[in-house]
């Protein structure tokens, strides 16, 4: 088995075992979305109007919740030292960790979306649209979050700093994610235009996030 596959499988195992935090993101997403109808009131048209935005905000906060431990745990127990010393390029190791993180926190959010759409009075078509935008958007959130996680790696309680660093960078993803969802539900824009831009943002953050995070980790070891 290649070193990267070993790292990927280890991170997935760690996330799904007790205390790994793999399920926490979905639970947090659930509670944020469930609280919304109580706060807004039983106005069904208003809920459906706000639904995509609320689902997107919930997903954004939930994916942020687990990101701060992504590199910090490995830094604290010394694993990061060994990963840095190894002949496997750090960029690829970061990419393997990001893939494992998205699979254990981003993908469950996407899968939970149709169920949570019901709380927001979204019909099947609207739920499918939000689900599709989250499928394209959550990897972007993970890759952007990588940069913050790598920058705050050596800080105790780096979680708050992470949120401050990362949330502004996610604004474009949020705008086009919600815009694409709304376009599919109420129009008048075609769904394709904002969705294509969302996909482009995801691919850009894939490249930028991985290299920036690896550079930040190297710098942070000093």
């Amino acid at each position, binding site marked *: *088995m*290649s*070193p990267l*596959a*070993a*790292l990927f499988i*280890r991170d997935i*195992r*760690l996330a799904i*075992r*007790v*205390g*790994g935090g793999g399920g926490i993101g979905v639970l947090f997403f659930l509670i944020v979305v469930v609280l919304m109808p109580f706060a807004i009131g039983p106005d069904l048209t208003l809920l459906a109007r706000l639904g995509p935005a609320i689902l997107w905000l919930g997903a954004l906060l939930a994916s942020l919740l687990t990101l701060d431990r992504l590199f910090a745990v490995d830094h*604290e*127990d*010394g*694993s990061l*030292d*060994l*990963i*840095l*010393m*190894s*002949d*496997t390029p750090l960029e690829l190791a970061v990419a393997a960790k990001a893939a494992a993180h998205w699979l254990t926190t981003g993908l469950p959010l996407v899968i939970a979306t149709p169920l949570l759409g019901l709380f927001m009075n979204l019909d099947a078509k609207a739920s499918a649209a939000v689900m599709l935008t989250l499928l394209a958007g959550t990897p972007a959130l993970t890759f952007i979050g990588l940069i913050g996680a790598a920058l705050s790696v050596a800080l105790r309680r780096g979680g708050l700093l992470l949120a401050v660093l990362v949330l502004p960078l996610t604004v474009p993803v949020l705008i086009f994610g919600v815009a694409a969802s709304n376009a599919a539900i109420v129009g008048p824009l075609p769904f394709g235009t904002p969705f294509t831009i969302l996909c482009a943002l995801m691919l850009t953050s894939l490249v930028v996030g991985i290299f920036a995070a690896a550079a930040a980790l190297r710098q942070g*070891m*000093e």
Partner: protein
Amino acid sequence: MRLEASGLACVRGGREIFTGLGFSVGTGEALLVTGRNGSGKSSLLRMVAGLVRVAGGRLALVDADPDQNIPEQAHYLGHQDALKPSLTVAENLTFWTRYLGGAAPVTGALAAVGLAALANLPAAYLSAGQRRRLSIARLLAAKRPLWLLDEPTSALDREAQDTLTGLMRQHLSGGGIIVAAAHGPIGLDHAKELRLGDSG
């Protein structure tokens, strides 16, 4: 193969820890780095491991594989043991073996450090000494010529210290190099000693 250093300087947090440090240690030899707390023993090992920037001087592994740099040919046993509490003993070791490119099955390495019976126990339940033993098993599971050991005997009981001495002798007789930081003797008879902090 020979690890050579000359005029090494280390600066951490704006403070000079050591300067003008030189040593040379060859195949089958061990270097014991001693010195008071804060004299830079750990920093020196981390510098050789590529984890601390070389602020001055030269550090080279002579007559080694030219395709690999020093960290890629070294094992680093630091104060942190790089173990995940929720993975079992065998899973922890299997991961590092694969990540570091080792091919040997982990059962042999576990038996060598006396942890074979605990292979399926989550690492969270290990004592400090057992965690140390598991880290030492990593040195055996993937083969590297240079061992960088930071206080390798800490938390180990008498018997485990003897085991470690045996493993280190085996490594040296197989053509390896050991650089170890310690406060006391670690059981190697002909180790060169490098004392930090006396000159400055």
